[in-house]
């Protein structure tokens, strides 16, 4: 993989995000909380982040994730789409999620 072949992934509504193979979302029984384990860090996602991450299964498109969450939160698509998209782009840029 040469440097020229590497490009920043940009999110679209058709992206089907999934956690990178070296990132694990796992329930920690000691703390009673969900943890994201990654090479150097452990993250403790808040409730909304967790709901997004659980839908990052490589099957749901970003469009469907927003739909799904809109249903769960009883909110309008437009109200939540920007936050979801920003979150996923950020997690992609930090090499935690593949778009």
């Amino acid at each position, binding site marked *: *993989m*040469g*440097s020229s072949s*590497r*490009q*920043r*992934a940009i999110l679209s509504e058709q992206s089907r995000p999934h956690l*990178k*193979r*070296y990132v*694990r979302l*796992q329930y*920690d029984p*000691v*703390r009673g909380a969900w*943890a994201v*384990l*990654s*090479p*150097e860090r*452990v993250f403790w996602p808040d409730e909304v982040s967790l709901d997004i991450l659980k839908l990052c299964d490589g099957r749901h498109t970003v469009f469907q994730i927003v739909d799904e969450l809109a249903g769960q939160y009883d909110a309008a698509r437009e109200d939540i789409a920007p936050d979801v998209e920003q979150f996923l782009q950020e997690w*992609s*840029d*930090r*090499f935690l999620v593949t778009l």
Partner: protein
Amino acid sequence: MSDALLPPIGMLAELTHRCPLQCVYCSNPLELLKADKELSTEAWLALFEEAADLGVLQIHLSGGEPTLRPDLEQFVSCLARRGVYTNLITAGVGIAEGRIERLRDAGLDHVQLSIQGAHAPTTEKIGNNRGAHEKKLETARRVVELGLPLTINAPIHRHNIEEVPAFIDLALSLGAERLEIANVQYAGWALLNRNALMPGREAVERQVEIVEEAQSRLRGILAIDFVAPDYFAIYPKACMGGWARDAFMVAPDGTALPCHAAGTIPTLHFERFGDRSLTDIWVNSPAFNAFRGDGWMLEPCRSCERREVDWGGCRCQAMAIAGDAAATDPACIRSPLHSRMATLIGEANSVSDADDFRYRRIGRA
């Protein structure tokens, strides 16, 4: 601080002090342990099981060179079974054919490979090992081919600070996900070799610009983590995220320590796993409790608004430079001893022979 004591998240396991390299900046203590002092396979396995019970989620398998332990696969599979994230920290020299594949199959999650120079002569000079550079590149290729995520760790000092752009190119060409541009922490062998390793101020400033530019240019392409050089800083780092707060380490003989250099604090006594359980040490060890939270702090830390940001900085650096482990880390601009950092930089930069190294060797500090 009155917060309840939380379990540790991370643990650094120094499986051995043996290493094919002799890096002049090594963070291991000057008194390196011989192989006969290392914990047995059974003891490490028991320790890892207890760490998982205690709540440790991430274990860095380090050394010395951890692949010198033939039982490494057993450790990885034990931890994988317990859902603990495993990170192998290796020098990447002398790893037998097929070994990395076996480690991957045992459940290894991530590899961090240290490279001492972006060019072969630098790598060989810093680690005092001919041919090391090519072997490291070969290890990197194998790791990537096997589909394991790779971080390149570049420890930065006077002898390679100009190679930072080349390190970035190297990490990209090797297919690494992450690059750590980690300015050397002056503890252990690096403290002994401080005068030979300290970079100049202009080189440090240039480095910061190069790294910032690369971080934004390579956003989403290569993650670049920057560990700033303490001696040139205004505020200290939160050492280990705070003393005995999130993480700790275990030496090859099972001694548990809040950080690498903690053994340099003569007033503290550290317990060994085996004599006491890990949980008992984490909760009750007087050494772990000595600088936990902020109750031990003196001024200016005691009333400082950053006291839970950096936890007063590094206790070992306070010991080394202020002569008092409870002092404010002199890296902090609010420390009355802050000007010593500039003096030490000046002293180091004025030495005539920057190649006057004392290489890391067992039994020869």
